[in-house]
């Protein structure tokens, strides 16, 4: 029972990671860029959601929606300002720019007139309820996270495989120039990808703030890194891979904290990443690309 409870805790963490990992993997799939600022968009999402259901007095779903809108706008703005000028420059330039944006968001949000540098304890918008199912305790927060993430995943699957914009995204991810020749507006498609990815990170941020009720401007670094690792673990650029990788990361972290030592959590998670990469250099679900000479 103890073990099963840990599995559920790991699932809760893994599902939140999945929401962040999706943004990383979609952006990587479409512009081959590690968007380091993504973890900080997650942080902004958490803060906006928190202000939404506390000081602005919005109902919880509306607070999530506000966070999604704000983060989408933020994500698209960052893409237009910092990444678009570098789209056809060496890849590393965009990566440095992404890192710069990440620092910018962190330090800007720590300014006193923005969010301030301190930790804030999140007052949940609803009481935490524990349900006892034959010895196993489940909270309403866990159920809520599960439902929200599954619904989001279904929406994403629909967007990518059943709509015109999804088709455009898939074509741009294969080849920018060919997609352009087929009449796809590449710039807009990339912006939409950033918007969707950021909206997902925003939902992840709000759920994270409710589940682990403490937020601060640098909170995005570690979850961002973990989620990114999860995306690489599953095979970056592949959507089911991101979810799979995130669920594995969630379990590994929770199990290490529960049965070994919470300080070794990160070390074990990254050791597994390195081992997986050595066996499958492009991730678990990654396709091995044959290099043409």
């Amino acid at each position, binding site marked *: 029972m103890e073990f099963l409870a840990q599995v559920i805790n790991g699932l809760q963490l893994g599902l939140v990671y999945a929401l962040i990992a999706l943004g990383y993997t979609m952006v990587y799939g479409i512009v081959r860029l590690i968007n380091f600022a993504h973890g900080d968009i997650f942080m902004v999402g958490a803060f906006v959601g928190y202000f939404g259901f506390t000081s602005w007095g919005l109902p919880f779903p509306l607070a999530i929606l506000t966070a999604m809108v704000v983060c989408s706008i933020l994500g698209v703005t960052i893409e237009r300002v910092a990444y678009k000028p570098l789209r056809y420059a060496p890849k590393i330039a965009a990566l440095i720019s992404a*890192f710069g944006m990440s620092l910018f968001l962190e330090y800007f949000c720590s300014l006193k007139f923005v969010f301030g540098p301190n930790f804030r304890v999140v007052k949940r918008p609803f009481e935490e309820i524990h349900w006892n199912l034959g010895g196993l305790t489940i909270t309403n927060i866990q159920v809520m996270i599960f439902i929200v993430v599954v619904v989001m995943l279904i929406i994403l699957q629909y967007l990518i495989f059943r709509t015109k914009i999804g088709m455009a995204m898939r074509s741009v991810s294969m080849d920018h120039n060919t997609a352009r020749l087929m009449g796809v507006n590449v710039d807009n498609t990339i912006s939409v990808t950033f918007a969707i990815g950021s909206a997902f990170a925003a939902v992840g941020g709000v759920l994270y703030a409710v589940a682990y009720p403490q937020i601060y401007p640098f909170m995005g670094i570690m979850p961002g890194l973990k989620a990114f690792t999860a995306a690489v673990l599953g095979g970056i650029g592949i959507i089911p891979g991101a979810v799979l990788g995130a669920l594995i990361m969630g379990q590994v972290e929770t199990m290490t904290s529960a049965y070994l030592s919470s300080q070794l959590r990160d070390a074990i998670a990254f050791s597994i990443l390195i081992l997986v990469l050595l066996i499958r250099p492009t991730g678990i679900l990654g396709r091995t690309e044959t290099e043409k000479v």
Partner: protein
Amino acid sequence: MRLSRQSVVILVLAAVLYVVIRSVEAAELINPYWRMVLDQSLIITIGALGLSLIYGFTGQFSLGHAAFYGLGAYTAGVIDKLWGHGIFPFFILSIIAGALFAGFLAFVIGLPILRLRSDYLGIATLGFGIIVKVAMDNSNKLWPVLGGATGMSGTPQVASFDVIFVIAFLMILLVRNFVFSSYGRACTAIREDEIAADVMGIDTTRAKVLAFVLGCALAGLAGGLYAHRYPFLHPSSFDFLKSFDFLLIVVLGGLGSMTGTIVTAVCWVFLLEGLRFVLGQNFIDFRGVIYALILVITIILRPQGIFGGREWKMFVPVINVAGARKEDADRHVST
């Protein structure tokens, strides 16, 4: 042995630079704080040259450079703290030990993971960096001297400007000579096209591991100097943000340009400290914001880096082609 004209120029320039800095110090135009910044900038230069070898010249994306910097710092620091007590030969031995240890670990980790390509290699090295940071945080459980998450102090502070300057100078020469040796050319060929290099008969694994080990050993050496210049070592000084510092120095300087790496490393350290000074107490919070903005704006304006792969002439050894050919011919005649 006859020194070439270029070697004389380099030696004279280094001597002039040394004398200028020394006389500025002697005239007390700079206070101890800025002297520390100056030493720091030279130390960072040594570490950044290591990454320049790995990424700039060999094209192997590493996001874990600070881990090797930290390993060197802790190794050298703990050796000198326990047994050296600041005796000069021991200090030199301890920083060599730091460099060797960093190089050895780079060999052990590099051999398997250098098979990975571009971003995947970056993430694997990032992961290694985080593992090392966790190990440093918990090091006191294995060996209390290392201090773990509370940090380690007590290393004798014997790294003077003279020592750091001489070592930095020697390391610049070392990297310059490596880059233009046949090994260095092999590395550059791998950066341009690994498959083509392989086809040309270059042992790519060997060249990549060699560059990685050498680069990481330089980071370890820089770490050893750091440990002897700053009395307090803490794991958070060697986390992945520090790795990014090295990376952005190499990228902003221009990949494949030693000149760029050296100039950017010195400027970057002075910029960071200068911002603290310019902003004053009231606006100190803006330091991070301005730093980030400078970073983004520079890279957007100069995506190929400030020096964009160009070198100062003195970093390109003049090869006396005619003389070499004559020598070669002589050898053929004699055999």
